[in-house]
């Protein structure tokens, strides 16, 4: 079993004990690694009904078998936990160089049990693993923490850490690693609750590959596939993800004013070219994750403010969604979320909900420390974000996201909360792409645009023959078969298991058969395209099982009412609403789900080799 380092690091933060043990071979065979490995651990070892802030919440950092190899963007680490934001499983992944370093140090996964009493950080230097006092770091922001730890231990050490938001158990808190974030679901708050400030890693070991020559051939093929996709290797390679703004707006997928509209004519000032062509105001630096071909990260510096990586989702969340069309305020909002460490998507979405509450008279200036929170008021947005991050003043009300703010405000606020399973919908209007309604609705971790980003297929018209998607799909039909969406979702989840970045598949670049070959050449284990997808299907089935145990059913796979009742404002989808029930029926059929329970049927669990899981669910 090459590729893997075959070592799981177990840290009990209360006992301060450190244990190294081989990976569980059953998990590797069934779920491969990464997200799947973490979920399997949670299912087997964690009580299913605990509160996410319970000390028994199992927090794990899981790399995939390809992490650390030269396969395209083989840098990913999946952070798996019970999400304080949603109450569902939490699976959030990040790039940077940390995951590869962890593999070089000799570990595939780190699992944290229980909680420390005092601030702590973990230091891993090869086989020397130790827990240290982090009292001096507590209260520092993400970049200060990283710098302090690098100063202390060495320039080449890689750091993941939380900022003040994580310490304050902000349910939107993210985990930071060199301006890459495990953003969604509140992973940072789980670290904060465990009083775990940072993990520092340095490794000098080898990630072995079963068939180096075969691997190099497949790696070349994968690179070729990536480089031959025009859009990926054109605008995204050059401008990064902000290049999606234009297309997203044109196809009526862009959230404007908290999803009141799906298109805007004011986009020009925030097109990515504005960042590049304004050299006196903005300096764009480039720094990529480990082994990344694409290089989507564009680090923006505005005057003396090191803003951080500006992504499509961030710009859309702080920009059109809040009615703000200038980079100055979007950049400042991103700066605060970066240094204090919260999820930019949810942060922008929460502010936009607050703006709508303010405009509808549900909130007044008195509730907002005097902020005039109209759509388009960038200054007020930035100030509210800062307050949210630090739970200052009125920020306390919004610090845990729009769902929890809505709960605190009352019934009249709830229709304007744009969440699924309490997580804010990201920047893609489901009225513009029928499949995205299902992706957001049925995502196991709450509204997520990467499970899968299916608008590429039905709205933008990509095909994916190697995955069985040979004909164009209708972006406005809920009733056509969703077999293709099942396959696409599994393929997106495969990237989380194997340790590659989703951007390798978002525009159908790397083919599933190439991916399977990469896995085979790396590990030496037998696998093909079908088995690859099967591993992802098992992971999804187990995530569904855990959610089911926690009370999640079909009703929780629904979108907010706005998408069913208010017709789309513009673009090809003009006048359209979502028919969620029909969409869910088709998707559940394709996935062999029980229509009410929203989990695979007993028989289907048995076909997946998960009869034991079904016994628990169908008892």
């Amino acid at each position: 079993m090459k590729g893997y380092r075959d070592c799981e690091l177990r840290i009990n933060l209360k006992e301060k004990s450190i244990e190294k043990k081989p990976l569980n071979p059953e998990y590797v065979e069934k779920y491969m690694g990464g997200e799947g490995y973490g979920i399997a651990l949670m299912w087997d070892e964690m009580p299913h009904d605990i509160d996410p802030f319970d000390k028994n919440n199992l927090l794990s950092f899981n790399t995939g078998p390809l992490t650390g190899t030269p396969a395209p963007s083989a840098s990913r680490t999946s952070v798996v936990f019970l999400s304080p934001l949603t109450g569902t499983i939490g699976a959030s992944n990040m790039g940077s160089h940390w995951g590869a370093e962890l593999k070089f140090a000799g570990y595939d996964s780190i699992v944290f049990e229980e909680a420390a009493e005092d601030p702590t950080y973990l230091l891993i230097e090869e086989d020397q693993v130790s827990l240290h006092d982090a009292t001096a770091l507590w209260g520092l922001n993400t970049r200060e923490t990283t710098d302090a730890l690098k100063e202390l231990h060495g320039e080449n050490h890689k750091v993941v850490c939380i900022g003040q938001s994580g310490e304050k158990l902000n349910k939107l808190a993210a985990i930071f690693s060199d301006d890459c974030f495990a953003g969604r679901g509140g992973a940072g708050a789980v670290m904060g609750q465990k009083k775990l400030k940072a993990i520092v890693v340095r490794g000098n070991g080898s990630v072995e590959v079963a068939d180096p020559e075969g691997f190099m051939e497949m790696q070349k093929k994968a690179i070729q596939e990536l480089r031959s996709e025009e859009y990926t290797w054109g605008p995204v390679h050059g401008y990064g993800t902000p290049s999606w703004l234009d297309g997203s707006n044109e196809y009526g997928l862009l959230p404007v004013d908290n999803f009141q509209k799906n298109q805007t004519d004011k986009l020009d000032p925030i097109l990515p070219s504005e960042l590049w062509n304004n050299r006196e105001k903005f300096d764009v630096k480039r720094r990529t994750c480990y082994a990344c071909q694409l290089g989507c990260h564009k680090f923006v510096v505005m005057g003396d403010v090191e803003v951080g990586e500006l992504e499509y989702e961030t710009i859309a969340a702080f920009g059109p969604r809040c009615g703000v069309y200038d980079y100055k305020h979007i950049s400042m909002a991103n700066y605060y979320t970066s240094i204090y460490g919260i999820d930019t998507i949810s942060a922008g979405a929460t502010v936009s909900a607050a703006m709508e509450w303010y405009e509808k008279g549900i909130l007044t200036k008195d509730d907002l420390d005097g902020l005039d929170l109209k759509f388009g008021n960038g200054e007020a947005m930035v100030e509210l974000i800062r307050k949210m991050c630090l739970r200052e003043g009125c920020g306390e009300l919004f610090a845990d996201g729009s769902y929890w703010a809505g709960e605190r405000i009352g019934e009249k606020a709830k229709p304007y909360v744009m969440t699924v399973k309490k997580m804010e919908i990201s920047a893609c209007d489901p009225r513009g792409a029928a499949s995205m309604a299902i992706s957001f609705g049925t995502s196991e971790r709450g509204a997520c645009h990467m499970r899968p980003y299916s608008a590429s297929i039905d709205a933008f018209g990509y095909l994916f023959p190697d995955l069985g998607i040979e004909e164009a799909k209708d972006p406005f039909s809920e009733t056509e078969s969703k077999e293709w969406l099942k396959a696409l979702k599994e393929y997106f989840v495969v990237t989380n298991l194997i340790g590659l970045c989703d951007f390798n598949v978002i525009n159908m670049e790397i083919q599933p058969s190439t991916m399977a070959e990469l896995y085979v050449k790396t590990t030496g284990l037998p696998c093909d395209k079908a088995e690859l997808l099967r591993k992802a299907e098992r992971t999804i089935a187990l995530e569904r099982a855990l959610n089911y145990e926690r009370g999640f059913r079909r009703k929780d796979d629904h979108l907010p009412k706005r998408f069913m009742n208010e017709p789309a404002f513009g673009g090809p989808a003009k006048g359209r609403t979502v028919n969620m029930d029909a969409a869910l029926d088709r998707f559940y059929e394709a996935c062999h789900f029980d229509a009410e329970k929203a989990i695979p049927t007993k028989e289907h669990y048995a076909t997946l080799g998960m009869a034991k899981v079904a016994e628990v669910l169908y008892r």
Partner: protein
Amino acid sequence: MKPGRIKIQVNASVCQGCRVCESVCSLSHIGAVNPNQTGIKITETKILGKFKQTVCQQCIDMPCASACPENVITRDRYSGAVVIGDGCIGCGACQEACPIDAIQMWNNTAVKCDLCGGLPKCVSACPRQALSW
């Protein structure tokens, strides 16, 4: 094959520090990825978005070869690369002699760029065309 003396040339301003060159180098030479057994090395600098690339420039006067007490460092007649032959005792004299610190010591052996025998793999793997030969 390119005629004349070749070496890896670097355009530092376009490197974004992904280290795929390191990874590919290590994998194709030792069959595993190890950040210390690479002929090319990318390190972060204090300036954000600027990286330092260290790779052997296949010097004409070969200070490493002069320093080697075992005389195992020679110029490959086919590729023109300065290569470490069998018999390295791991003394580290070549590393000390190298003016640009392009030789790494690992497990008592010197590691340096050998131009992959003439067709450097890091060059084709670099997504930013920061490397050429």
